[in-house]
């Protein structure tokens, strides 16, 4: 069974601060997605990373994929209350497998 560790599990910071969320596995991903999930709703795709070392930016959000494709990070600059939510990383391990393996998520609260 593949395990995907996400940290921190909970994070509460003040508006304007920066933060980083981490996603780690002992196995190599063929691709990795970051989702955001609101209460009572399904995960909404933020980004997909595929290539080792890849960096993608989505406004104040920066996503990095590790060189070995075993880890990823989400960095938020100048966090805003609207960033509050549950952030999930989910990976595909390849070898023909297609189902996503999810982390437990990071509950982020941005206090005004």
């Amino acid at each position: 069974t593949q395990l995907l560790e996400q940290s921190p599990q909970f994070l509460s910071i003040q508006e304007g601060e920066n933060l980083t969320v981490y996603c780690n596995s002992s196995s190599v991903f063929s691709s990795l997605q970051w989702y955001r999930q609101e209460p009572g709703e399904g995960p909404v795709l933020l980004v997909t990373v595929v290539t080792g070392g890849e960096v993608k930016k989505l406004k104040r959000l920066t996503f990095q994929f590790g060189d070995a494709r075993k880890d990823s990070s989400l960095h938020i600059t100048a966090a805003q209350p609207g960033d509050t939510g549950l952030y999930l990383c989910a990976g595909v391990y390849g070898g023909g497998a297609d189902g996503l393996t999810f982390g437990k998520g990071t509950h982020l609260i941005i206090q005004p």
Partner: protein
Amino acid sequence: EPEVTQTPSHQVTQMGQEVILRCVPISNHLYFYWYRQILGQKVEFLVSFYNNEISEKSEIFDDQFSVERPDGSNFTLKIRSTKLEDSAMYFCASKGGPVTLNQPQHFGDGTRLSIL
């Protein structure tokens, strides 16, 4: 923007009964998935479906579960003889291309299944 739609949003069923959860994937997508999320736990993969057959399933997806694409638009998950521990959010997802193209999966808003 195209989206995955799921019905019903909430299903309450007596233990031992059968339930069918319905999904309409994004119209030009070819790969379909079911996931579940027990309250307070992580999202777990159940099954993937392509070309009218199961392509991958997890240990959770035992003989109690089945999937079907009865027509050109719907994708269903049937749970037979439901148990209390089947209570969860069930998410449907779809994507347009094969795993080799690394396209992302897009999720519906889920069906909350409550077994009494």
